[in-house]
C-alpha cells in the first residue's frame, strides 16, 4: 500500500460514511448539511490524488464554501430545528428491507454500466489539471459552453430573485 492508496481509501470511507449519515441517520438538517460538507471535502481530497488540482480547489470553494453555506443559510433563516421522518408505518421493517434491496439493485446496475477494465493509470503530460491548461481550454475549445453557463447563471439569479421576493413591485 502506498501513501496515496491509503489516503484514497481513507477519503473514500469518510465520504461514504458522511453521505450515508446525511441521507439515512441524521434527523437534524444542519447536521446533515455538515456531514455533506465532510463528503465534499473528502471528494476534494480524492481529486487532488487524481491530479485534478483546479477541480479540487473549485470543489472546496464552490461546493463547500458557497453552495452548502447557502443551504445552511436557508436552514437557519427558516429556523428548522429538527426533521421528522414521518409517522412510523406498521410495515416499516418490511419497507426497510425492500429499500435496502432496491438500493443494492441500483448499485449493481450502476456497476454493470461502468466499464470493467480500464487502461492502467499512465504518466501524465506536463501541467495536467493545473489552472493554466484548463483556463486555456475553457477559453478556446469550450468558449460556447462557458458563455452558455454564464447565461444560465444569469437566468438562475433572476429566477431566484423572483421566487424569493414577496411581491414584485
Amino acid at each position, binding site marked *: 500500500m502506498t501513501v496515496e492508496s491509503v489516503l484514497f481509501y481513507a477519503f473514500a470511507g469518510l465520504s461514504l460514511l458522511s453521505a450515508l449519515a446525511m441521507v439515512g441517520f441524521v434527523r437534524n438538517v*444542519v447536521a446533515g448539511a455538515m456531514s455533506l460538507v465532510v463528503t465534499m471535502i473528502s471528494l476534494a481530497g480524492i481529486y487532488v490524488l487524481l491530479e485534478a488540482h483546479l477541480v479540487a*480547489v473549485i470543489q*472546496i*470553494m464552490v461546493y*463547500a*464554501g458557497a453552495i452548502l*453555506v*447557502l443551504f*445552511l443559510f436557508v436552514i437557519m433563516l427558516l429556523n428548522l430545528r429538527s426533521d421528522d421522518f414521518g409517522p412510523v408505518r406498521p410495515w416499516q421493517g418490511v419497507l426497510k428491507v425492500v429499500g435496502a434491496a432496491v438500493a443494492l439493485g441500483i448499485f449493481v446496475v450502476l456497476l454493470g454500466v461502468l466499464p470493467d477494465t480500464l487502461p492502467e493509470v499512465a504518466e501524465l503530460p506536463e501541467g495536467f489539471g493545473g*489552472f493554466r491548461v484548463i483556463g486555456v481550454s475553457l477559453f478556446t475549445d469550450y468558449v460556447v459552453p462557458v458563455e452558455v453557463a454564464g447565461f444560465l447563471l444569469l437566468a438562475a439569479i433572476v429566477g431566484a430573485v423572483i421566487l424569493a421576493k414577496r411581491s414584485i413591485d
Partner: protein
Amino acid sequence: MLLEVVLKTLFILMIVVGVFAPIMTWVERKQSAMMQDRIGANRADVAGITLLGLLHPAADVIKLLTKEDVVPRGANRVMHLMAPVIAAVPAIVAFAVIPYGGVYQFGDHTLSLVVADIDWGLLYLFATGSLATYGAVMAGWSSNNNWSLLGGVRNTAQMISYEVTMGLSVVGIFMVFGTLKLTDMALAQDQTFRLLGFIEVFGLGMLPPWLDWIRLPNWGIFLQPLGFLMFLTCIMAENKRPPFDLPEADSELVAGYFTEYSGMRFGLFYMSEFIEVAVISGLLTALFLGGWAVPYLSQDTIIGAIAPIFGDGLATIVCMVLHVVTFLVKVIVMVWFQMLIRWSLPRFRYDQVMDLCWKILLPLSLANVFATALVMLAVGAA
C-alpha cells in the same frame, strides 16, 4: 527535507500563534485606550512588575483555561464543542502558503522560506478562507440561542457576499504578475519599474536617461491601487471585525454567534480572530506590499554589496534575516493599520454592508479587471 518543513512550520506558528496573537491583544487594548484618552491595560502584575500591561495576555490565558466550559441546555453538544476548533483551523493553516522570505542558495541546497510552495497558492487561500464560515455557522446554530442564530445568519450572508468580490478584486493582481504562486509574486515584487515608462510604451516620446532614476518598487499596491483598496475592504469584512462586525454586533446581539461560549472555547474564537488579522496582514503584504522585498534593494543588490565583506554564505544569511525582518515589519504595520480602522469607524448598518458589496465593490472590481486587461493589451504585456 521533512525536518526543514517542520522547522519552517514551527517558526511561522511560533511567530503567529505564540507571539503575534497574544501581543496583539495587548496592542489592541493600548491602541484603543490611546485613541479614547484612557490608560489601558496596566493592572496585571507579578510582584509589582507590570511591564506596561504586557502581562495581561498571560493573565487572560490563565483565566480562560481555568474557567468552566459551559454547554447551554438544549444545545447540540457535539457541534457546540466542535465549532471553536473549526473556526480556528482555517485561520492557522492559511499561513502555509504565505512566503515570509525569499529563495536562498547555500552551496547546492536551495532554501525557500515558505511552508508549502504550491502553484495555486492563492486559490488555496481562498479555499481555506471559504471554510472559515463553518465555525461561526456551527457556533451560531448549535447554541440554541436566538442571538447566536441571528449572528450565524448574518455571518453566512456576509461571508458569501464578500467572497465573490474578494476573488474578483485580486484577479487584477494575478493578471499583472501572471501567476497564482505567492513566491513568484514576491520575486516579481523585488524589482522596480520606471514611473514614467508608460510615456515610452505608448509612443508619446522618448525619455531622457536621467529620468530612469524615478522608479517605484514593482509592488501590487502601485500596479493595482484600486485592487488593493477593494481587497482590503473585502478581507476586513470577511474577518468580521468592526466596522463589519455585524455577526457579533455587541450592542444588538450580545456577542453574536459566540454568545454562549465560555472559557477557552471563547478564547479560541477570540484567538482565531487575531490570527486572522495576522493572516490578512501577511496576505496583503505578500500580494500588494512586496512581501519580503526591501524596497529599491533587490536580493542580488544586497548580497552583491555585502558579499565582499562577509563572504558568500554569511552574506546570504544576512540577506535572509533582513528579508524576514522586512516581512515582519510590513505585517506589523498592516496589523496596526487594521487596528486603527477598527477603532476609528462605527459599525455599518446591515443594508449598507450588503449595498457596499453588491452595488459598489462588485461593479468596481469587474471594471478593474476590464481596465487592467485593456492596459495590459496596450502595453503588450499579455
